[in-house]
């Protein structure tokens, strides 16, 4: 048995109650977004229960942001009126995608247990916490009790060694992992990453932890290191330490090693994030749309990399390039640094920070037979639009290069 640091974090949050393999576990922070919240409101009202700790919730309106139909407008209205009535201080409307806002705020850090009503809650594990997604009813239980029931996961140690080539991003590392094991290859497990050479920027760590769920993992976690502590210091304006005298000793049932220096840009083919080939093998695949955004690929480093490729160039004739910064804060920084200017001059269209095209929610929905290359996390059939549309997943670098060429393109072709 090896439950890694994840197991230790869960054990330390367990309150002593146990049923079968499940431990009743104290939760440090809860993430909830508009549609997931809408689904639990009726039950919460019927229970006439109070929320255990209103300061430990982040509620975002990021899916229907802004709403594109009357029903969604009424959902947002209901969610906002709930937030106002319950006096939920951390309620963010149209400020960005929940998974980005969760790590931008001063709430979560190493050693914590974080649950969210969205599968990509795993993103926050990049900060060294156990962060996992659940359905609305599970989250309702946590809102009322401050607890959840968790099984300590079997943990997989992932050693990332060597330097990252300039054409490889966190997304490529995630796709490499998924391609190796297939969908469900990490079912119920914790993936614990050791960036042994300290070379993976925090934004790329978020992208990696974001996508562990596509392999079925319960959570992904980067062992806290200098990159973690410096991110937290900049974010919170103060130093943070591990909440207990953590020795760094954790046990694992299995181990994977990835030599970063030999990685190449990757591409997930329709209709699975685990159907992975080298991006260069996609040469010749025509695409009509490129989407750079989402909780996987819309961070500042993603926009930086995309802008570098696009600067001074034009997207291919007929290409629709849609770019969504993951939060308002990222958007503003991208403006200050000239990324937005470069993207717009190249013919890209900027959408407001929100989930948008990734889940086929609004803006950029695909028509019959259309092909899109996306920096998001899922390319399941019909997710982004018509069931006959096809979605390829790749890094922001590959996405930008492909937007310029009008077909799937290994970014090494355009990087100088």
């Amino acid at each position, binding site marked *: 048995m090896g439950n890694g640091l994840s197991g230790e974090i869960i054990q330390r949050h367990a309150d002593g109650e146990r*049923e*079968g*393999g*499940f431990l009743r576990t104290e939760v440090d922070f809860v993430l909830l977004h508009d*549609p*997931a919240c*809408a*689904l639990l409101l009726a*039950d919460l009202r019927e*229970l006439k*229960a109070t929320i255990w700790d209103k300061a430990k919730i982040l509620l975002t309106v990021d899916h229907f942001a802004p709403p594109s139909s009357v*029903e969604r407008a009424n*959902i947002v209205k209901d969610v906002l009126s709930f937030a106002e009535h319950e006096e939920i201080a951390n309620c963010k409307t149209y400020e960005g995608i929940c998974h980005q806002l969760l790590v931008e705020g001063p709430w979560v850090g190493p050693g914590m247990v974080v649950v969210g*009503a*969205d*599968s990509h809650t795993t993103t926050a594990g990049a900060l060294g916490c156990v962060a996992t*997604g*659940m*359905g*609305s*009813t*599970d989250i*309702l*239980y946590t809102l*009322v*009790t401050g607890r959840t*029931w968790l*099984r300590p996961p079997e943990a997989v140690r992932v050693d990332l060694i060597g330097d990252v080539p300039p054409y490889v991003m966190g997304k490529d590392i995630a796709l490499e992992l998924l391609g190796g094991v297939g*969908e*469900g290859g990490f*079912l*119920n497990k914790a993936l614990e990453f050791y960036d042994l050479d300290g070379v993976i920027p925090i934004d790329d760590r978020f992208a990696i932890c974001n996508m562990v769920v*596509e392999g*079925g993992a*319960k959570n992904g976690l980067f062992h806290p290191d200098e990159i973690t502590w410096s991110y937290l210091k900049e974010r919170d304006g103060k130093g943070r330490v591990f909440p207990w005298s953590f020795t760094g000793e954790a046990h694992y049932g299995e181990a994977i090693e990835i030599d970063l220096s030999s990685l190449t840009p990757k591409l997930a083919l329709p209709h*699975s994030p685990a159907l992975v080939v080298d991006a260069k093998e996609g040469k010749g695949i025509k695409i009509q749309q490129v989407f750079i955004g989402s909780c996987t690929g819309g961070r500042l480093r993603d926009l930086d990399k995309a802008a570098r490729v696009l600067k001074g160039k034009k997207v291919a004739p007929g290409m629709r390039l849609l770019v969504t910064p993951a939060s308002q804060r990222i958007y503003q920084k991208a403006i200050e640094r000239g990324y937005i200017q470069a993207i717009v001059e190249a013919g890209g269209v900027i959408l407001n920070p929100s989930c948008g095209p990734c*889940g*086929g*929610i609004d803006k950029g929905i695909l028509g019959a037979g259309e092909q899109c290359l996306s920096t998001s996390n*899922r390319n*399941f*059939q*019909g*997710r982004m639009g018509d*069931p006959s549309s096809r979605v390829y997943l790749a890094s922001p670098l590959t996405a930008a290069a492909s937007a310029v060429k009008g077909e799937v393109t290994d970014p090494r072709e355009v990087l100088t």
Partner: protein
Amino acid sequence: MTIPRMISGTAWNLGDHVNTDILHPPAYFSLDEGRVKDGLREGMERLKAGVQGGDSTDGLVIVAGENFGCGSSRETSVRSLRICGVRAVIAHSFARIFYRSLANLGIPPLECNAIQACVQNGDPLLISLTDGFIELGDTRRFPFSPLDPHIERILECGGLIPYLRREQDGV
């Protein structure tokens, strides 16, 4: 409302890695039950696996392969099963969020490797939660893996919300 210990239904056979986006396309997210129900019908269409004839959405038991319900945590996908009368889901394995949500909404998630290859759409199934078997057409019996006592407890209560009520009442 507790879950009956004997469950009968008509088999709806699905494959491996059926994700929530195809089972219940995201455009069908809604608070309207009719719309949520339509989403599952659309999913059946896309999976080309709907049960033929009559009202196919009464008393169903889904039989699936590996990693059933992978993808999104949108609970509408599981709620659609409840609305459409899915009484149990049998799979080789389940994606974890979907597994939890099934139990939370009072639909038993049962792990069984052998049955899927033997089941045709529309076959009658009888499940005994107490004795741990699934009966296919009066003749063949397949055991399913024992449920974890925590999941068993949630199902006994009829889902996580009644479980929470009992926990709060100190029962």
